[in-house]
């Protein structure tokens, strides 16, 4: 299965997406970008909640607009803003979503119990959703997305509201789930997709900055990440001068991690690059291409 965005533009009052091209095959795709980069718009286009101003979103070469209901039948979506009916119980809600998703009554009961157990909400009984915690609501949102066992799962900031343990469980689940499916995971938290993303798509100012595997991307910043220790005053100057991926302050001493081509100070030492370093480097170097 191949999902392709071909020369996609989206214009509201201004151009939000500019000639976006990418090809998605089975695996987890981390969609990274700062706020306002166009992540949510891109996701809305992939979900066919909106149509592109120009260009096409294609599934196996066919425009998703033509596939319509057939496309939606293989789609699961976790929106940024959790949607739910407050007076429903989790089972009521999932039952309603099963109907809307065209899952037969016969299948739905078993499916609901399965997904509730997958997201650890199987003991919520008659508790109404309005009485759920933020994390529980988020897990319910994930549950509804996987009800139809979708081939394309779109997650827009799915880990917000989840605690550390829930995050770990969720990442593990996605990793297993994505075996033969396309999972698009939009976030601005790099650590969310560090271990599970097969490929990263980095968006900046409505353009795809890069799409590549983390290993390939990391090799591009290898030898450009520097750790150093300095005094607070010097740190302030360095922070302004170079992209800074980490800061640790101990009294008047500051530990900095900078991403730059050249050694920033004599006492700085080369460090092993991670995705956070790469992400910052790409965002702050507009001309840089991988």
């Amino acid at each position: 299965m191949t999902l392709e965005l071909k020369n996609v533009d989206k214009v509201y009052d201004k151009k939000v997406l500019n000639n976006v091209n990418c090809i998605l095959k089975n695996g987890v795709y981390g969609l990274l970008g700062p706020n306002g980069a166009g992540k949510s718009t891109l996701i809305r286009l992939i979900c066919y909640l909106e149509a592109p101003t120009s260009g096409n979103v294609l599934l196996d070469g066919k425009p998703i607009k033509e596939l319509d209901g057939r496309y939606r039948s293989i789609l699961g979506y976790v929106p940024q803003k959790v949607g739910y009916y407050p007076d429903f119980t989790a089972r009521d809600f999932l039952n309603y979503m099963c109907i809307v998703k065209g899952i037969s009554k016969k299948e739905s009961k078993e499916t609901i119990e399965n997904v509730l157990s997958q997201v650890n909400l199987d003991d919520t009984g008659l508790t109404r959703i309005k009485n759920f915690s933020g994390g529980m609501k988020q897990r319910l949102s994930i549950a509804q997305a996987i009800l139809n066992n979708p081939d394309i799962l779109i997650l827009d900031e799915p880990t917000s509201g989840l605690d550390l343990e829930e995050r770990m469980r969720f990442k593990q689940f996605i990793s297993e789930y994505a075996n033969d499916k396309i999972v698009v995971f939009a976030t601005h938290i790099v650590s969310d997709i560090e271990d599970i993303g097969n490929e990263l798509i980095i968006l900046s100012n409505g353009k795809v900055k890069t799409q590549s595997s983390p290993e390939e991307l990391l090799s591009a910043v290898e030898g450009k990440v520097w750790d150093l220790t300095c005094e607070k005053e010097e740190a302030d100057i360095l922070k302004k001068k170079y992209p800074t991926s980490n800061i640790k302050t101990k009294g008047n001493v500051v530990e900095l991690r900078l991403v730059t081509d050249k050694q920033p100070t004599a006492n700085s030492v080369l460090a092993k690059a991670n995705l956070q370093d790469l992400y910052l480097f790409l965002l702050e170097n507009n001309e840089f291409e991988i």
Partner: protein
Amino acid sequence: MVKSEIYKFAKIKTIFVSLFLVVVTILLTLYVYGGFGYNLNIFSSVISYSEKSGDLITGKEGYQQNKEIALKYTGEVNDLFLKQLHHDVKNSSYVEFVEGKKFYNATYNFFNATFAIDSENYAKKDDIWGNVDGSVWYGFSGDWDAYGNILNNFFLVFSLFIIIIIAPLFAYDRECNMNELLGTAENGGNRLLKYKTRAAFCSLNFLMFIFLIFISIIHFSQYGFDNANVSIQCSLERRFISSTINMNMGQLTLWRLLFGVIGCNMLGFTAILISMLCRTTLASFALTMVITWSLSYPIVQMIPNENIQNILLAVMPINALFATALLLDFPTWYALWGVVIVRFLLSSILFFITIVIWKRNYLNLNKGD
């Protein structure tokens, strides 16, 4: 899916509101029969009219008197009939009714129209109903008048019910951030519009049907179907006396039902449209109430221009529920059918706009398409 939408209505507490309305309707029905006998129309001037004059007979006493007179003179109204009536009234105790000492206003309406008590001459049939295309049949109309009043009252109460069940139809999804989820589901999009609309109209029409059956059983089991052929000119509603439409009470009742059903469904369309445009259920409910009631019959009557009045009466869904008013303000068959056609056209336009708004605004599929 239709069932699940109805279940959703129930979950968002409209079921309790519905039950409350059921109780209100039942109480209203009992009130009509037990409290005021046949002379209740809470939305017309009859009550205030009665209250002004202590001599008026209301309720069961008035009904009995009206029935007594009507049974005696039942028949086709012609010059001979009027002459006889004039003679009898002048020489009987009924005279005191028309002198204003003690009369039942329904009886008074008819008597008053047919002759002047101080005059030795009676009015000719053609002087009063010359423009009516057909014969005028006098008789007891109390049962059918009462049924008409109950229908009017029911449709007005039910209009509130319609607004309550339809206001959340789409607005509630927005309020709950469900639009995106529904829009990405297999049965989202146009199918969802179809199912939601069907759920709304199924509930609306099913409940309307149940209520009407309930009211009709209570009424007709007690009073039967007699006197359906009495002309509307002899009805309790005093303004019908001058109507030029040749219609009897049975037909009037069918028109009331027709207008009520059309009006409720048009109101349903209006409520659906507003629900699509609002972000919260409360806003949807308030806006529908304001839009539908601000141009209702009592308000429209205050507009000095009669043409504008008539247009608003024909166009505003809520005014279909004031069936009596419509029949009075469109007093010819052509005008009456014209109003029905306008209403059907308007329903189609509302339906069309609903689809357009759904596609353009609700699903946001317009931009750049």
